[in-house]
């Protein structure tokens, strides 16, 4: 399996991934670009071999398989098929009448950084003090006791990407987390996942800074801000690269700069761009900036007008992370249509359903059904097997973790959801959620439902939800 590429990272990619720390070249401390700070300490919970029998299985890698089995061994998918042999002592789960999908993945969440209760004490998602804050990292705002994690888990979400907000042109690094209860943020970090950088187009940055009488106050100011930052980052990267090429003598080290370090990581191809951008014409401008400075955009986010430039998205291999139906809350979202996701899919581009919302993240299956229905109504040839990819393998691709998660294929992490029925029905619920083959949520058993420290005992027994 290709996931080996992730677990044996080349040293040059170190600064761009979430760890673990790669071995240092020689015995000296490697340059910052090659170290991993705040490295992932995530390790799968222990699990027994488990087989789900006789379910309707959506693999997100092929057509739906009726009456199929899913076998998980040592935290990985061992096999998907009919009448599988399971190891002696394997846990048998009766899948009759149930549907099985990969764990759901959201490319756009603010859980942990805009935690519940939504009070100022926990409002940690936007460092809106300067238009370029590429130096901040969302993971340093994550509150591991956010009760929203458990609610998302009950909706089948096993991996999610936490981004800084969109007040700034460069909002900071995003982090990909496993939906596992942990005492530390590092314990949630998806091992080996690439870091990302949040950028934002349009109304938000120009409003936030224009209202303060400083640049950017316009969209043209936004673009000047991006380009100036990339020019500075390219210069920084050139100086650092030269220093490393010359042997990285600590005495001659060019001064480290956190902001440029992240931007240079993008230019080196290690850090992925996640770009908040609503309008089609603005997405076209952002694609040109990416071309000018030689980086790629992993995904546009919100992208309510993706349908207007879906051919450009397909040509450039750029994903679009979209809502099923949010629109109209600001002018740049006024042209949102429900067939957006379906049209992007039809054009052959990478279509993703995202939420940006701690309520919607709990019901991504329903939103995918809404988007599927709109596509069918628009006459687009789509079915459930297309729609399941919008919330599994396609988001994995945008996050650079598609070799590890996002589909039920041999060798991948065993992130598996057992649904009470068709996941595109309003009545279906995630009954069991497996993370790396370990049962981390069981709707029928409160002892297998995580409860954050915050909710523990905050209300009397009878009043606890």
């Amino acid at each position, binding site marked *: 399996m290709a996931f080996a590429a992730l677990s044996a990272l080349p040293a040059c990619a170190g600064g761009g991934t979430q760890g673990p720390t790669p071995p240092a070249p020689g015995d000296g401390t490697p340059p910052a670009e090659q170290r991993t700070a705040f490295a992932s300490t995530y390790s799968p919970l222990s699990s027994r071999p488990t087989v789900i029998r006789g379910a309707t299985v959506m693999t997100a890698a092929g057509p739906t398989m009726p009456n199929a089995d899913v076998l998980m061994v040592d935290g990985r998918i061992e096999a998907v098929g009919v009448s599988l042999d399971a190891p002696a002592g394997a846990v048998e789960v009766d899948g009759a009448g149930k549907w099985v999908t990969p764990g759901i993945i959201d490319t756009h969440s603010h859980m942990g950084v805009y935690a*519940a*209760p*939504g*009070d100022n004490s926990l409002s940690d998602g936007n460092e809106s003090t300067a238009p370029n804050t590429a130096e901040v990292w969302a993971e340093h705002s994550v509150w591991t006791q956010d*009760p*929203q994690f458990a*609610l998302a888990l009950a909706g089948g979400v096993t991996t999610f990407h936490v981004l800084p907000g969109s007040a700034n042109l460069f909002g900071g690094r995003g982090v990909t987390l496993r939906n596992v209860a942990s005492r530390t943020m590092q314990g949630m970090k998806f091992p080996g996942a690439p870091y990302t950088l949040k950028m934002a187009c349009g*109304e938000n940055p120009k409003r936030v800074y224009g209202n303060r009488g400083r640049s950017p106050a316009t969209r043209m100011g936004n673009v000047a801000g991006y380009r100036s930052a990339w020019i500075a980052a390219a210069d920084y990267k050139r100086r650092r690269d030269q220093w490393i090429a010359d042997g990285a003598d600590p005495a001659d080290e060019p001064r480290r700069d956190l902001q440029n370090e992240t931007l240079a990581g993008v230019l080196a191809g290690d850090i992925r761009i996640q770009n908040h951008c609503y309008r089609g014409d603005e997405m076209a401008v952002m694609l040109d900036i990416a071309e000018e400075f030689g980086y790629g955009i992993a995904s546009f986010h919100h992208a309510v007008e993706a*349908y*207007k430039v*879906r*051919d450009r998205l397909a040509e450039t291999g750029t994903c679009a992370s979209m809502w099923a*139906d*949010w*629109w*109209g*809350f*600001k*002018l740049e979202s*006024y*042209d*949102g*249509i*429900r*067939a957006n996701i379906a*049209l992007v899919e039809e*054009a052959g581009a990478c279509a993703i359903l995202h939420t940006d919302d*701690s*309520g919607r993240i*709990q*019901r991504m299956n*329903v939103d995918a*059904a*809404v988007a*599927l*229905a709109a596509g*069918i*109504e*628009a*006459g687009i040839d789509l079915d459930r097997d297309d729609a399941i990819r919008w919330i599994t393998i396609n988001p994995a691709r945008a996050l650079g973790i598609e070799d590890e998660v996002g589909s039920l294929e041999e060798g991948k992490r065993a992130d598996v959801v057992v649904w009470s029925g068709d996941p*595109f*029905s*309003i*009545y*279906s*619920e995630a009954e069991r959620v497996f993370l790396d083959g370990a049962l981390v949520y069981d709707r029928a058993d409160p002892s297998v439902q995580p409860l954050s420290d915050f*909710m523990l005992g*905050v*209300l009397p027994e009878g*009043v*606890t*939800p």
Partner: protein
Amino acid sequence: MTRSMSGAARTLSRSMTGVEPAGAAHPVKALAAPRAAFALALAMLAGVAAPSPADAQTVAITNARIHTVSGGVIENGTLVIEGGRIAAVGADVSAPAGARVIDGTGKIVTPGLIESASQLGVVEIGAVDETVDASSSDDRVTAAFRVSDGLNPFSTLIPIAATGGVTRAVVVPGGQALIVGQAALIDLDGARPADLVRRDPLAMVSAFDEGTAARFGGSHGAALMRLREALQDARDYDANRAAFDAGNRREYSLSRLDLDALAAVVNGELPMIMEANRTTEILAALALAREFGFRLILFGAAEGWVVADAIAAAGVPVVTNPIENLPSYDRLAITEEGASRLASAGVPLAFTTGVLSGSPALGTHNVRNLRLLAGGAVRNGMAHADALRAITLAPAEIWGVADDVGSLEAGKEADVVVWSGDPFEPLSRAEHVFVNGVEQDAATRQDRLLERYREINEAMPEAYQR
């Protein structure tokens, strides 16, 4: 046709809604006939076509599974629409000669859905102030504020909401005040955009929540003090109008207009919607309603299930979004099962996509999703029939229009939806939506955008496609 109605006609029509008697004492039924006559006269005056009989055609929906809500489910039934009303519904009904027949085989028919707390018509683009008419910036008591005064009959949101089978909606004012103003009930009838308001005022609206408490003295007690002062003043004013007008009454904390508006609450003419989520807030609202004898409708009631018996005992209905479940300090006990628990306790329940505080635009732009909220309530333990009732007959009863809409019964106004399947399922769709017997089938702005961009046209820019 009515899209071209002249400005003069719109003005006249609006002023007509303005002269409707205040208070909820007048049933909508009584208004219907005069309004039709007035509309005809108006149309003649303005030289444009009235809502013509052609709009309100005779339609028979045959062989369908009909959820009447008031009288159970009829298998293989027929429903006849005539003159804007339901002429007949039943298993043994036949289509009248000359009727347009819609084959309902395999389809489900329900009453039109009723949204109980939207900002339809007063919010177009949430962040564009020029398109938002939902509130007064006055931050104290603006009881006299009528949301209907700013209603935009051409809002693109209204036909988009109707695509989700929603045929009537309560429009609530928003804003920062303790008492924000008066809600109205509208028809989602694109055939008569200048004549959407059905009942105005419908209810007084008060936000008694965490945020309001913070703004009015920093605590719930301080906010309650202001509410009590306002209600006492309104009660005193109501009993002493002549003395007040003669200058022989003490000073009040409110303006004369606000006193007038609140008097309708304290004398029982107008119900008051109070947003209250925390158990403390709910109990305080119930106590306030008892103290002043007004008709209370709770909005939100996130922790309502904790005191469901007290709410039920007071006979107070609840309007809520049944799938909200994110905890905050004024709703730590919130759960998706809350609605189902309230229903079990006997609390009359209506669902809404809306929020009074927070971000009303998000709810208002997706009023079309009301049916999915009902489905969510079923997922969380509510009976399907009860959930359907919570978006049809229950709100009709709460808003005092159950004689006219909310169920499929002969004689009622023909708000009827034909669904491709279970209305709560996202993969089902509303195939025909009738408001007052008129099918709402005009393309929405979103339909037009889809049509324009269905193919990317390299030869000729999309801008040339109408």
